[in-house]
């Protein structure tokens, strides 16, 4: 339960912190940290325009996307505690729920019959399928280290495996940040602020969404950031710490993550579109690097 609430709190501030960091980096004062949430609130109250080409799929997609993310939050624990629900293999369930949300966003985009949105959907599918193996290799390595395949058990035991497990924690923290960037369509794979439709991936898929549905999509995106910073925190926080320190540490990690994203987006350009597949393959490479580290830690490799 704690995890669930903390993810929501983190999600409230996350987009704001990114925006603020970017403003400061470019020499502006920037809006309030809660501005993105106010924008979403406003969107919820607005009317919508639906394309005549679209069908029920398009209208359902944002709802299903949000429901997927909310359900996947049920299995994410916090600080060595228990998640609301946990069972053997819930890591797989988590990954496939995110895939379910993506599935509906993709067919929702194709439902508009727009060439741009088709392009975005195609790219999103391609990138997602390249990220998936990296995530599963990470899950495999975590379950190799701890002997479990549920988030609750993995994080309960991860930091007690050995003193050096922090090495693996840092490596996978890096991997999670990269995966989060792809999942949430941020730089360097995708640029949420670009205004040239040809170069967009996720943003071009939601061109036709408006009002309440667009609000749902932004909420989903913010919650996803919350989930990933929760995973980060779980990898890095020793479960033996006192709760108060854990909360503080979680705050530091979330803010740090958001600031890092902001700084990255201020100083880095987006990858050339055609180079993205190669870039994403490096994620699998990092996952395999993690496997090497794990094998050395477990003394499987002399």
């Amino acid at each position, binding site marked *: 339960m704690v995890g669930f609430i903390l993810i929501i709190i983190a999600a409230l501030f996350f987009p704001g912190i990114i925006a603020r960091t970017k403003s400061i980096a470019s020499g502006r004062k920037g809006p309030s940290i809660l501005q993105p949430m106010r924008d979403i609130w406003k969107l919820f109250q607005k009317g919508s325009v*639906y394309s005549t*080409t679209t069908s029920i*799929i398009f209208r359902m997609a944002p709802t299903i996307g949000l*429901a997927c993310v909310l359900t996947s939050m049920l299995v994410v624990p916090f600080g060595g505690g228990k998640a609301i629900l946990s069972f053997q293999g819930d890591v797989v369930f988590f990954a496939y729920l995110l*895939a379910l949300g993506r599935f509906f966003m*993709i067919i929702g985009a194709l439902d508009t*019959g727009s*060439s741009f949105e*088709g392009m975005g959907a*195609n790219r999103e599918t391609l990138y997602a399928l390249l990220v998936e193996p990296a995530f599963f290799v990470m899950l495999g390595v975590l379950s190799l280290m701890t002997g479990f395949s549920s988030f609750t058990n993995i994080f309960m035991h991860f930091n007690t495996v050995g003193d050096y497990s922090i090495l693996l924690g840092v490596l996978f923290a890096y991997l999670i940040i990269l995966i989060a960037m792809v999942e949430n369509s941020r730089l360097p794979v995708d640029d949420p602020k670009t205004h040239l439709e040809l170069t967009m991936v996720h943003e071009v898929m939601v061109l036709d969404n408006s009002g309440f549905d667009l609000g749902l999509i932004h909420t989903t995106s913010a919650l996803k950031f919350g989930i990933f910073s929760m995973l980060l925190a779980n990898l890095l926080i020793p479960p033996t710490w006192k709760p108060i320190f854990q909360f503080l540490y979680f705050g530091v990690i979330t803010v740090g993550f958001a600031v890092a994203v902001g700084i990255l987006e201020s100083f880095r350009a987006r990858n050339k579109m055609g180079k993205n597949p190669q870039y994403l393959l490096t994620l699998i490479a990092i996952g395999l690097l993690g496997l090497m580290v794990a094998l050395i830690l477990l003394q499987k490799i002399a």
Partner: protein
Amino acid sequence: MSILFLILAAFVPTINFFLPRSRHFYLTILAQLLVALYSVTALVGSWTGEGELLLFFGEPSTWALSADSLSALFVVLINLVCVLTSIYSRGYLSPYLTTKTRSELAIHGVALVWLQVSMIFVVLFRSGFDFLAAWEVMTLASFVLVMFEAEKRETFWVGLSYLIQMHVGFFFILAGFVIAYNETGIFGFAALTPYFAKASNIPLFLVFLVGFGLKAGFVPLHTWLPNAHPAAPSHVSGAMSGIMIKMGIYGLVRVLFSLQQQYLEIGLILLTISLLTGLWGVVSAILQKDIKKVLAYSSIENIGIIGMGLGLGFVGLYLQSKSMALLAFTGAVLHIVNHSLFKPLLFMGAGSVYKATHTRNADDLGGLIKRMPHTALLFIAGSMAICALPPFNGFISEFLIYIGMFDGLLGQSLREIVVLITSTLVLALIGGLAIFAFTKTIGVAFLGAPRKPNDHVKEVDGWMLVPQYVMVALMLFIGIFPSVVVKLIISVVAMFPLVDASVYAIVPMLTSTSTISILALAFGGFIVVILFIRSKVQQDVVIAQGPTWGCGYTAVDAKQQYTSTSHADSMMAISKPLVKVTKDFDPLDKMEFFPHDGSFKTGSNDVFEDLVTARPTNRLTKLLKQAAILQTGLIQHYVLYAMLFIFGILVLTYFNLI
């Protein structure tokens, strides 16, 4: 169970030869229902254990039918798939009632029932001769079904090549039985256990793998599948893909049950082939424009996933990780069940599209969800299941295989860890690619704007929709309440070597599957809540309709949508070495004063089809053509050959050479 009854039932539809065409359906479905009810009720008791059943004329004879839980599971699946696809055929075949003659339709009906009965016999006969006879009848019945539209030249050739390839497989199975017979003196599956106990397991396993693998469609033996499935009528492709190719898996599993040693090697062989099969199938599926070809290749992918589960199970046995073996086997068996639910559903959906639009080329479709809402939603449900997305059944089987792999990781040495992590990686990749293939198919065929005018397209009738809804209901049931089904199939899993009764001790471990039910309900709850809030909020605001946002470009046209080909483009770039992309175009000549119409066509060839089937056959044809010089067609020459032959024999006998 009496064989006689089933055989008699199989002859019921022959009365169709004397009935008007519109009545054919009722007798066929009556026979199928009789077979289904009789065989299923007779087998209910044998679900949990081995039991000799009633015999020919009620007397014990050599035609012993024997059922265990594996047979029982398959009998249920066979009947389910065959009956549902036949109900669907009532609507699908209606346009053919006027174009086909009475006997053509009657033959089709007879073949439908015979396919069902022969498959039931395949899973019930243990003796080699009976099994092979049933196997042959199954092949012939399916051949007749594929050839339904034999007046089309393409279908004719596809049917012939199917028949030939199936017989190559038949001879491998026969050879396998003969080899075992030589050692043990028993002809049939019973010979395998004593044979495997004495001799090396791998060679005979490989022989059977080729024989049964041809039916199942393991790469590189799959080449008949993507051709035969689109050529057959849709209810037939549904039955063939849903259950008939599983007969190959059934045979393979029977062989696996008897294995005694070399588990690691056999597990790795199976695993490697299956990983290749899964990846190859799904990558090829992405490249297809023909909806039924997408589905055929995706069947190959799913056979790969089943094979992965089986292979991993044996690796688990070798590693002495009982939980891993158990989870992988359970995943594999459940995937057999799952695939025989969602693949017929998808084929029926594709058939409805073909019936309504007269095309299977996705690039000519689009926007069908408006014209055929039921078909579209059912197809989307089937696609979600096949992409292993919760809350559908496909997720459960892949989930079991995943946790099997994660479970096996602990305490293994480097070599095994590498194998397991590689399998995880490939399975994840297959999952992502499957989403690619099916979002593409749904998006291009059902969503967006119509690429060609589709005002004439109408939703199909209830006969065609009801079976599909039944399938979706079953799929959702397995997906939401997996523990019920897992408990049922655990008695099948108990038959794998070394797994035995310990299975039941691990059942509590599988209760994790019941947490999935809670999560599925939570998921449904979230959707309901969000929709409720959404409808409340949207009551007070303006909801407008407008054209799709063209990014400032005003002359938007349906042709500018992403097509199947453009979706596949990014995949083509990656999979170039594996797929031969053919470009067939006719450029305009500058010097021509009256230029003809230019044309441009792209397609993709299966490299395996070229290497394994086409090239050897072409070489053989070339060789035989040289021999055909003798075949002049003149009767005098043939008399001359005969005389020369007799003369040759005479000479040879004279010198005591023969």
